[in-house]
């Protein structure tokens, strides 16, 4: 391993970055998996619920739930990019700077 890499491993900031970023990435991944497979399981087991009209109209619960799943994918990526490109990248920059 190069000298730079060795300095990075020994830098507590690196451990901090990994811990924070991994926890964040996995939390968001699990959130996406739960939302999506929740939707899929509703399709498989809860057809009746998805097909229930909201109030007196013809629009069923399935429509907002489906649209929510699509929008949640976009929002979750936004949340990740915001923190990763801000807080995490700043920490990463410091780590690389200190390894020189």
């Amino acid at each position, binding site marked *: 391993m190069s000298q730079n*890499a060795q300095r990075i491993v020994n830098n507590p900031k690196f451990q901090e*970055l990994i811990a924070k970023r991994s926890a964040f990435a996995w939390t968001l991944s699990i959130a996406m998996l739960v939302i*999506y497979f929740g939707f899929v399981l509703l*399709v498989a087991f809860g057809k009746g619920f998805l097909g229930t009209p909201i109030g007196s109209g*013809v629009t069923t619960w*399935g429509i907002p739930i489906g649209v929510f799943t*699509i929008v949640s994918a976009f929002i979750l990526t936004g949340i990740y*990019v915001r923190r990763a490109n801000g807080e995490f990248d700043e920490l990463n920059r410091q780590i690389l700077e200190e390894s020189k």
Partner: protein
Amino acid sequence: MRAINRIAAATAAAGALLPVTAFADAIGGAVQKQATNWEAIIMFLIFVVATLGITYWAARRTKSAKDFYAAGGGITGFQNGLAIAGDYMSAASFLGIAGLVYASGFDGLIYSVGWLVGWPIILFLVAERLRNLGKYTFADVASYRFQQMPIRTMAACGSLATVTFYLIAQMVGAGKLIQLLFGLDYIVAVILVGVLMIGYVTFGGMLATTWVQIIKAVMLLSGASFMAFMILAQFNFSPEAMFKAAVDVHPKGLAIMSPGALVTDPISAISLGMALMFGTAGLPHILMRFFTVSDAKEARKSVFYATGFIGYFYILTFIIGFGAILMILRPDATGAYPFLTAAPAAGAKAVVTSIIGGTNMAAIHTANAVGGSLFYGFISAVAFATILAVVAGLTLAGASAVSHDLYASVFAKGRATEADEIRVSKITTVVIGIVSIFLGVAFENQNVAFMVGLAFVIAASANFPILLMSMFWGKMTTRGAVIGGALGLVSAVTLLILGPTVWKAVLGHPEAIFPYDNPGFFTIPLSFIAIWFFSITDNSETAKNERRAFEAQYIRSQTGLGAEGASAH
């Protein structure tokens, strides 16, 4: 309604919609050649001239291997987001999903959701590590600390299998669609697509391919936005009013507002979900796009923008599908049904499958109804451009697997010069182009709808497990990766052939040997388990070295230390 008369002779070729149809382009059943559609041809020619101009510009800037494979690494996150969306929003999503919504309503949404949710996973787990570790292809990452020859060969096989099946579906789809929309011969259409894609890729490399994708994405998004706007405007922007009108005319009535017969048992539902989600993260032409940006920051932004564009596009497609129900199944102002082969009997509801040209034409007819024949021409040209852009991306990914992975790393063992590598890449592009023209002709009368599904299952079962484990699991070894990947690839192909989509629907056997349309539920875990098992039982000296090399790889993947930057110009 001149444009209608042009397609009035087409046969309704819808047939039963199998679940895999959501993967398909306009490729189900036979179509008849139409009268020449000049508006569409002129608009398509404008697109071709513009993209060839870009190719000329790109060719002068494409000198090094980095320019050729990765557009010099100088694409911005926003541009790459649009290009990824362009790669991903194929004619399948546009025509196929709109057609599915037209025929079954809510079911179309189930697929849209499945096609989208892979993107956040790519961002959270794959994108930045991939960008930090790789150079041109995903095999760079998968083989990072392993023996180059076996892993690159395995990854190239996975890439080429994915690309080939995807390409066949696109070529056959292109031929049929263009026959229907432009009134050109099938063979002319297939040759045109093949020749143009060779031109874009050999001369302009990744830079030209990227801009072709961006232009096409902007055209598709604007066209679809206009259609959705015009449809909603008729209902004062009240979705409830639109749904109500659709429920009133659709033969299935209120059933179009709830999940139908498309997804029946939980295993099929989860299996399809897994293949879509993890397959997206294993598509070589998509993964390649992450090397066109300067760093991990831009790579993350690309996924954010791509997810936004693709999600927005799927919501539009859903509205367009409902618009199609209203434009096609409701009589026009004169009481006629211009888009149906036969008007319904008095008092009866219109028959969904009597749509001219089959259900995949739903979006195209809707374009005609809301925007007249000029807009119809525009949307036809967009559909053609869409296929062209997707095949260009696929061809580049296939050519890179051959030149960068097989030729440079396996055959020449890293001793090939950059110029040699680019030359091999260009030759491969020409070969892939010619081969796909032949395959397009060979499969003209076959039902190839399952092939995009096959491409996704292979990507999810062979490419994705190797890629993910190589980045996340320090104990993986060459042996584990190669055996796991190979098992994933072989089991995916075998089970799909033995399943209902091929064994029953294509080969005509009465009963399928394997009961599920989508084998992802079994093949994806199989590949992961095999990688794990054959790695932990590997006690060879090389395996020990590979495990020791993980820490350095890990540091680079996390921090970008030593990662490829953008080239100088």
